[in-house]
């Protein structure tokens, strides 16, 4: 029982990391109808900024997160201006933009690899462990869960209660309809892209003390994020959050009785079954639309 509960805690922490990455990915798809291949690299850049801030500049971890937010805002703005917006405004632009984000992904990955090198880097996050009898959770994982929850709730409030959120949902439903009603569709899409980039960066900053920084970390995480987005429903915010956490929990719990590799096979099998039975995803109704 102790092991079950311990793995449940581990799974929620891992799943929250997945959820935060998948959230941005599904947001971009929901509002912009774009599959962003560079999303994993934004996650990696968020982690890299954390490394630079904490390890090389000696800034405390807590202060590094605002730096990550500002840096990723800038990254999102530049990528949107250079590789997304110029294509999205054209007819059938989403396809070209998909390819351009793929190019951006390769560019960022190769750039970091070339400048930084392949060496891993360790980041000291929040030290200490919270012990509850035989169970434990590292304070960093606790921060990841709590900060992640706060972000998701805050994001939901923005989406449901603010004018900007209403505009986002309008654009997600129909960009043409939104345009007719006077909404600046391009502006909303750009803001969405930047917001998703910042989310990925924050996820990187929260996860890097747990998993270490490597230039390949974005490529590894984005595959799971795509699985979550497909399972939760393309464009579904709560689908991404719930399926992200579920995936983490499922991975951890199945590892008690099965090899981790077998558990992964089950998860990818689940993705295939979901596509066959519910092509729009398990939770498609809760989308931004």
């Amino acid at each position, binding site marked *: 029982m102790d092991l079950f509960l311990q793995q449940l805690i581990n799974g929620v922490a891992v799943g929250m990391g997945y959820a935060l990455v998948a959230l941005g990915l599904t947001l971009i798809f929901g509002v912009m109808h774009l599959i962003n291949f560079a999303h994993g690299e934004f996650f990696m850049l968020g982690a890299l900024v954390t490394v630079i801030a904490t390890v090389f500049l000696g800034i405390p971890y807590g202060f590094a997160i605002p730096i990550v937010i500002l840096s990723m805002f800038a990254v999102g703005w530049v990528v949107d201006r250079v590789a997304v917006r110029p294509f999205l405004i054209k007819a059938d632009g989403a396809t070209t933009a998909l390819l351009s984000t793929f190019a951006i992904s390769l560019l960022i990955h190769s750039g970091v690899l070339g400048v930084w*090198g*392949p060496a*891993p880097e360790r980041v000291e996050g929040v030290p200490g462990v919270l012990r509850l009898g035989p169970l434990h959770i590292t304070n960093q994982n606790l921060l990841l869960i709590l900060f992640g929850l706060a972000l998701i709730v805050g994001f939901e409030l923005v989406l449901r209660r603010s004018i900007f959120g209403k505009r986002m949902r309008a654009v997600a439903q129909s960009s043409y309809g939104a345009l007719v009603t006077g909404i600046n569709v391009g502006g909303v899409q750009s803001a969405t892209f930047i917001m998703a980039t910042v989310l990925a960066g924050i996820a990187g900053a929260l996860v890097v003390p747990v998993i270490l920084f490597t230039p390949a970390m974005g*490529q590894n995480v984005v595959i799971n994020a795509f699985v979550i987005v497909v399972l939760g429903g393309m464009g579904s915010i709560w689908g991404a959050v719930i399926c992200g956490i579920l995936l983490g929990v499922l991975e*951890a719990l199945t*590892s008690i009785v099965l090899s981790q590799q077998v558990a992964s096979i089950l998860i990818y099998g689940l993705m295939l079954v979901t596509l066959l039975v519910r092509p729009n995803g398990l939770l498609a109704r809760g989308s931004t639309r």
Partner: protein
Amino acid sequence: MKVNRILTIAAAAGALILGAGVTHVAAQQPIKVGVIFPTKTLNGKVGVQGAELAVDMINASGGVLGRKLQLVIYDTNYSPVEGVAAVQRLIDQDGVKFVTGELGSAVALAVLPITEAEKVVFVASGPKHPDVTKESNKFAVRLNSTTAMDAGFFDKYLKARAGNGKVAIISENNDFGQLTVTGFKKLFGDQVVFADFFAMNQADFNAIVANAKSSGAEMVCIASSNVEQWGNILRLMETTGFTPREKCLMPGLLNLGGIKVAGKAAEGLFSADIYYPGIENDLNSKFREAFEKKHNQAPEKIEALGFEGVWVIAQAIAKAGSDKDTAKIAEIIKTGSWSTPRGTVTFDGKGQASSGELLPIAVKDGKLILAPK
């Protein structure tokens, strides 16, 4: 008629001068050595650094047969497809007759038929698969030890340290990991209370460490070639209060990069290897000092193997007196005895290198030390 004779003499003299010039240029052309590694990985990068240092030292002392040595480096990305492309480019485009490097067995096994068919000498650095060296392939040798060679020494050592306690193994999921876990289970039988694999790109080890902890293992062994993975596993073990009596890393994997990642969680970790920076011999002192001067850190096994590949090729060419006959040079490598940073290296009939028994090593105060046998 007189004019014709003058022209003929002038042409002959010109040809002689030109010929001499061409011969002189040929004599000065560098000897190219192809280097293949997964250069975008940490291990691949340091392997290249070792090879480059060998070239620096050889060229600084006059080169080989009066010619400079020149490296042509390509990335294999741990991919057999990219490895084959790299070697074909080395042979067809760069005119290379000597290739060294690589860490992955799959890549080495893929490129071996090409180097053999093209009569190119291949000195494999890191692959551990037994089929990398064969009696029938006259052109290939391997510097690293095989898993079976490691086991020959390490199994006894491991058994002694484990005693009758419960043991666990956490391993990466590839051919090396599978072989290691099979051998481990065979060695310890019922003492094995936990064995699981993780993916080569896995970054979170909370679940696997929690499972290992709950098994009650008194000795935990890790089979992982990625420093970020084994370093992180150790770190997580310590953070979550999992402190088994013994922690070991399977042979050939312990290095300072992982110790840096693991921090104090690496204290007491033991392993064994064919090389460690503190080996006492003249060449290793020079190698270590030059490497530390150039890269501000001590060289380790992969660096030493990268160095050794180029070093042995260069010595063999010098011994052959020419770089033309690759069959002769390959034969010289296989039958010779070579001074390298790890000591005297010899090859068996298959082309497998050996420098004697593995050295037991451990981590103390964040440094690698020789452990008592």
